[in-house]
C-alpha cells in the first residue's frame, strides 16, 4: 500500500533510494557482517550507501542484533533523533522474534511493536549477499513509496508509546541522584 505522492516527493524518493546513509546500531553479533559488505568484495558504496556517525545525518537505522530492555530505550531515543523520512531495517532473526534468546526475561521479541520496521533480514546473522538483496529490495520500496514506516510512527504514535511504556515502564530513565 503506498500513499499518493507529489511529483517532488517522487523525485525525492528516487534520490533517497540512490543515496542511503546508514546508522548502525551494532548490538549482538550482526555488526560483524557489515564490514565485509563495505569493503572491496561487496562494496556497499556503489549503491550510494555509507555509514554515518550521527543519527541527525542518517536515513537508515540498522538494528543488527537482539534488543534488551536497556538497549531498546537507546534505540527509541536515537530513532526519535533522526530526521524524516527514516527507515528501519531489522537485521537477523533476533529482531524478528527474539532469535535464540526468545525466552529470556529481558529480550524484546518483536521490535515491530515499539518502532516501525520497514524491512527484516532473516538469518542468524545473514551473509552479505542477503544484506545486499535486502538493500536492493529497500531501494525498490523507497522508489515505490512503500517504505512508509516513519509515517506510520507519526500517525499512530500513541499505540507505539503505549507499547513502549507497557514493556519498559518509562522510556526516559529519571535518576533521582541527579535531579
Amino acid at each position, binding site marked *: 500500500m503506498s500513499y499518493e505522492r507529489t511529483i517532488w516527493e517522487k523525485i525525492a524518493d528516487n534520490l533517497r533510494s*540512490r543515496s542511503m546513509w546508514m546508522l548502525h546500531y551494532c548490538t549482538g553479533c550482526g555488526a560483524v557482517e557489515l564490514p565485509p559488505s563495505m569493503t572491496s568484495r561487496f562494496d556497499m558504496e*556503489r549503491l*550510494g550507501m555509507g555509514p*554515518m*556517525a550521527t543519527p541527525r*545525518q542518517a536515513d537508515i537505522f540498522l538494528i543488527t542484533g537482539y534488543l534488551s530492555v536497556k538497549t531498546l530505550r537507546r534505540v527509541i531515543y536515537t530513532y526519535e533523533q533522526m530526521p524524516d523520512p527514516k527507515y528501519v531495517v531489522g537485521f537477523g532473526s533476533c529482531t524478528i522474534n527474539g532469535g535464540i534468546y526468545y525466552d529470556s526475561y529481558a529480550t524484546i521479541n518483536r521490535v515491530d511493536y515499539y518502532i516501525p520496521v520497514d524491512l527484516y533480514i532473516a538469518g542468524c546473522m545473514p551473509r552479505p549477499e542477503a544484506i545486499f538483496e535486502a538493500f536492493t529490495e529497500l531501494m525498490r520500496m523507497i522508489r515505490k513509496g512503500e517504505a512508509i514506516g516513519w509515517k506510520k510512527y507519526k500517525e499512530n504514535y500513541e499505540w507505539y508509546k503505549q507499547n513502549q511504556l507497557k514493556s519498559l515502564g518509562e522510556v526516559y530513565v529519571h535518576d533521582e541522584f541527579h535531579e
Partner: protein
Amino acid sequence: MTIFKVAAVLLTGFFVGLTLEGIARKIIARVQRRYGPPWYQNFIDVFKALSKHGFSHGWIFDFGVLMALGGVIATLSFVPLGNLVAFPGLDNVFVVLYLFAVGALGMAMGMVGSGNPNASIGVARALTQMLGYEVPYLVSLAAIIFYYKTSSISNLMNLQADSWNLFKMPIGAAVAFISLMGMLGKKPFDTPIAPAEIASGPMVELSSKYMGLLMLMHTFSIFVEISLFVDIFLGGGSYLVFLLKFTVVWIIATLISAVLPRFRIEQVVKFYWRVPLGLAFLQAFFVLIGWVF
C-alpha cells in the same frame, strides 16, 4: 556584465566541484580495489540531504550556516578561473583569503551554536589547524607578491606566462601544496571532522537541509582553494586549460589523501610550523637574494 561572469563562476564551482568530488570518491574506491559510486553520486547526496525535514537549534544555527555559505560564495566570485575574471582589478590575495575566514567563522559560530560539545571540540581543532597551515601559506604567497610586486591574482597569473611559478619557486609551490592539503581537510589533516573521535566534529548536529548547505559550502571552498593554487602556481591560461590543471591537482591531492592516516591535532600544528614554515622562509630568503629559476 559582471553578473553573468559571477553566475558563470558560481555554476562552474557547483558543477565542476561536485563532479570532481564524485570522481575523487571513485579514485579512492579504486585505490581500495572497490568499484566505487557513480561520478554523479555527490549530486544525489546533496539533493537528497536538502529534501529531508531536519531539525534547527535556533536562529544562530541557521544564521551561521547561511553566513558560511554566503561568505564562501562571495570568496568564490572574487577568484579568477583562467581568463574568466569577475572583478578584474579587485581580486586581491589577502582579501580573498580573509573573506574565506568569514565563511569559516560563520560555520564555526553556527555549529557551536547547536550546543553540542563535539561541535565545539571540532571547531577548536579546525581553528588550530587553520593557524597551522595559514602561516606558511601566507609567507610563501608574500614571497611571490614581493617578487612580482603585485598582489592581484589575475596579474600574478598573467605575469607567469614564461614559466610557471611551480618551476620558478619550487619550494614555495611545495609549501603551498602542503598547506592546500590542510585547507582541503583531506585525510592527513582531517582532524576537525574525525568521524571516529568526535562524531564528525562540527557536523554532529547538522540534520538534512543544513547538511546539504554545508556540503555545498565544502564544495565551493574546495573549488576556491584549489583554483587559488592553480592561478598562482600553475599559470591559469584559458578556461578549459584551467579546468584541466584543476583536475590534475585535485587528483594528486586525492591520491595522497587516500593512503595516509590522520594526524593528531598537536602534530598538525607542530608539523606545519616546523617543515613548511621553514621551507617558506627559505623560499623567501631565496627570493630576497634573487635565486628564482
